[in-house]
């Protein structure tokens, strides 16, 4: 198994200093150098830089190029953001959206994973192939297709609602003619469709990972429990879940991180960065920085807040895992 703890060489390395110095080999460091430089310059340096930028008032590209002064504002950008009631809306959108999407993705993905494990071989291959299609489709084109499905004149959903008997449609929704209905106009409906798109994209990964986990668990345990008359619900919570707990942990963290920073789907569905009521942190940061008038410092501060939230999520998870390992 590929874990990080597989380096037993530490003991061997604790030899006499003289011998060790003789055996130091420059080659691995040389091989590593290009990768270290690239990661350092393109990932770590910008991570530091975004924090630095968040302390300055940067409102023009010429400042970025270094042609003009960078006025230091300390925590001014953060104060501006946190005192703006709009930030609360954005934060609420982000957190609720992420929570709903992680939950739905995990539940649907796990159910599909369990289902794939129970299906016959041919059927499982067929369903898994279809599920793969959703996973493989780029976020961009997947979203464009969903947008077409929800098109207000010829979209499939508009047609389906028009096809409802008028009486029923009136009784349920208070309208019978859905042609021209703006599916994306109310924030709540917008988020519902965005959730559909994001869950559609992300449940396959969960399903396939859960399936891979299930295959690694000896099936005798499940069979024994089933023979003893345990319900599927009990089998899942008493046997499957505890065995796959590490897998679920990683999947939840990955999903949380992905759903907190959804950008492409939202950008395409909203048709740009104009739809402020549906802003979430990543698109808010982008819009502040790049929609005229540019506010790079403010955008950077929002990006830092997003990163900090993700850091806390990851930290919580690590602590949770460590505590569980202590107890067992």
């Amino acid at each position: 198994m590929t874990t990080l703890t597989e380096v037993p060489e530490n003991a061997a390395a604790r030899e006499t200093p003289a011998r060790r110095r003789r055996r130091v080999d420059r080659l691995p460091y040389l091989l590593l150098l290009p990768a270290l430089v690239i990661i350092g310059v393109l990932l770590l340096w910008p991570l530091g830089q975004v924090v630095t930028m968040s302390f300055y008032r940067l409102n023009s590209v010429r400042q970025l190029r270094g042609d003009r002064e960078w006025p230091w504002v300390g925590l001014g950008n953060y104060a501006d953001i946190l005192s703006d009631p709009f930030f609360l809306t954005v934060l609420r959108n982000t957190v609720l959206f992420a929570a709903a999407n992680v939950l739905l993705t995990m539940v649907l993905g796990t159910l599909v994973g369990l289902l794939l494990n129970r299906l016959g071989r041919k059927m499982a291959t067929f369903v898994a192939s279809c599920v793969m299609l959703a996973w493989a489709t780029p976020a961009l084109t997947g979203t464009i297709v969903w947008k077409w499905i929800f098109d207000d004149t010829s979209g499939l959903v508009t047609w389906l609602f028009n096809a409802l008997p008028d009486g029923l449609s009136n009784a349920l929704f208070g309208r019978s003619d859905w042609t021209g209905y703006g599916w994306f106009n109310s924030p709540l409906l917008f988020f519902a469709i965005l959730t559909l798109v994001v869950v559609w994209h992300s449940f396959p990964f969960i399903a396939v990972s859960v399936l891979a986990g299930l295959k690694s668990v000896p099936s005798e345990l499940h069979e024994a429990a089933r023979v003893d008359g345990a319900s599927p619900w009990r089998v899942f919570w008493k046997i499957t879940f505890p065995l796959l707990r590490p897998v679920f942990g990683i999947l939840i963290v990955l999903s949380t991180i992905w759903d907190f920073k959804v950008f492409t789907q939202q950008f395409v569905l909203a048709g740009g960065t104009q739809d402020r009521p549906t802003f979430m942190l990543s698109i808010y940061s982008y819009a502040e920085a790049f929609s005229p008038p540019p506010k790079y410092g403010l955008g950077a501060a929002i990006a830092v807040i997003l990163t900090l939230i993700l850091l806390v999520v990851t930290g919580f998870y690590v602590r949770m895992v460590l505590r569980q390992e202590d107890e067992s």
Partner: protein
Amino acid sequence: MKKVALNVAGLLVALFAAFPVYWMISTSLKPSSEIFSSTPQPVPAHPTLAHYREILTGNLIPGVSFLDFFLNSAIVAISTVVLSGLVALLAATAVARFRFRLRTSFLIMLLVVQMIPLEALVIPLFLMIQRLGLYNTLPSLILTYLGFSLPFAVWMLRGFVAAVPKELEEAAAIDGASRAQTFRRVLFPLVAPGLVATSIFSFITAWNELIFALTFINDQGRYTLPVAMTFFFGRDDTNWGPVMAASTLFTLPVIIFFLLVQRRMVSGLVAGAVKG
């Protein structure tokens, strides 16, 4: 009875997952009269390639056609793949074949940097690209995507390198091969399939990316496909036939590549999670 219920559930899942992809291809093959008819046709009644002809031969802006955007995307993605594959192979060899003091730290760093929200790096990387004078050039994107794809590429390739039996290299060394020769003649051919799989991931990362391409490129003639698609097809009066044709052309290479390597993706992302 239970079997039937399971199979029905399976079919519903398959329908939900695959339908949008089917609908995209199906719409792209319908004449406009069918696309905009009041009763949707599940299957194109009169299939036509007219929309494909339209986007492949017409110009979206004067002098720039869909194929130009396709080419821009291909240049960026292939350059990313080559550079990232090369650098990742060197680094993967270092961590899989040598024991050195910073090895574990490097591996942990690889995992940690993959958790960095890339969306948070748009602003500082925009600054860097401006300073380097790379704004509005394709190399700005190649550089960016190289950074994004590298950590996962190293992580994935190291498994492939480690899987090559060390004895083969030792045998080559005993036969008098130099380190460079061993690398080229023994290790490289055996790792090649892994390199292909890794390259496909880097390709998909670069091919699909939208935000950075949107931010770093100003000149419409240099747009990559994703940017061109949001720009030209994001209007209200969307003409869905050509849009679906363009989406299909954009999606197909990704789906084909993806299906070739998806197994490795799962094992790469959740590696070490199951105590087997």
